[in-house]
């Protein structure tokens, strides 16, 4: 069961919903939004693991192209290509992406208003930055060096990994719904990644989502 909250957020009509986890769950959620609520745009938020050594915990990724790193229907089609759609990635809407980048940069300008110093120290957040980059999604929790190496080798433009984004991007592509996504980096997706994840989600990622969406919707 999914709970869809309809109403106003920062003076804009929105429908807010938890994706649930994994590609199928998130795609189903997106389909409901399109079919049952007739949304004219979808924005996706959440956390992700960095697979780029220059992308740190606390950085914000604004997605450009989204790949399914576990898609492999070879030899029918080449690895990562989505059957029948003849493409390996789905792009976010250029205009929404630009607006999202602006919203993220504005958020960082007022970072202290959202993330207290105590929390920054707790999670060793240095100088968070906004990164425009590609996202790799898959139904796997990426945590080993070999998994990261696989993604770095085969999808070198991917800067972070998560489990839903590319699925929602595909649904939006098929229905011609403008799609954008930002993700807060919660870990480095490697063997050494140990953070208090529930605390990070509640104290850091939640405030990122709130601050960035406020800027995005207030335009």
């Amino acid at each position, binding site marked *: 069961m999914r709970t869809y909250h309809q109403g106003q957020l920062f003076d804009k009509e929105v429908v807010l919903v938890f994706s649930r*986890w994994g590609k199928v769950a998130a795609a189903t959620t997106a389909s409901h939004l399109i079919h049952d609520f007739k949304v004219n745009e979808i924005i996706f938020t959440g956390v992700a693991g960095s697979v780029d050594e220059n992308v740190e915990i606390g950085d914000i990724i604004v997605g450009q192209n989204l790949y399914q790193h576990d898609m492999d229907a070879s030899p029918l089609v080449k690895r990562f290509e989505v059957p029948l759609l003849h493409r390996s990635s789905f792009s976010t809407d250029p205009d929404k992406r630009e607006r999202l980048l602006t919203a993220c940069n504005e958020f960082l300008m007022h970072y202290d208003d959202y993330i207290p110093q105590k929390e920054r120290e707790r999670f060793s957040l240095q100088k968070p930055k906004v990164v425009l980059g590609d996202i790799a999604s898959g139904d796997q929790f990426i945590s080993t060096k070999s998994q990261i190496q696989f993604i770095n080798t085969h999808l070198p433009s991917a800067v972070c990994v998560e489990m839903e984004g590319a699925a929602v991007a595909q649904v939006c592509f098929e229905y011609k719904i403008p799609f954008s996504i930002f993700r807060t980096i919660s870990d480095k997706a490697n063997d050494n990644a140990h953070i208090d994840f529930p605390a990070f989600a509640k104290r850091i990622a*939640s405030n990122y989502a*709130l601050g960035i969406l406020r800027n995005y919707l207030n335009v």
Partner: protein
Amino acid sequence: MAIGIISAMPEEIEALLHSMAVTKTFRIGYAYLPSGTTF
């Protein structure tokens, strides 16, 4: 027409709901999450 906002984190949903004026809530589907899960 509304903007669809999806979050992969229940904690984000909770934080956003504090700032949202909810007019209607819809529950879709029949498979329930384990008891105690509210999203």
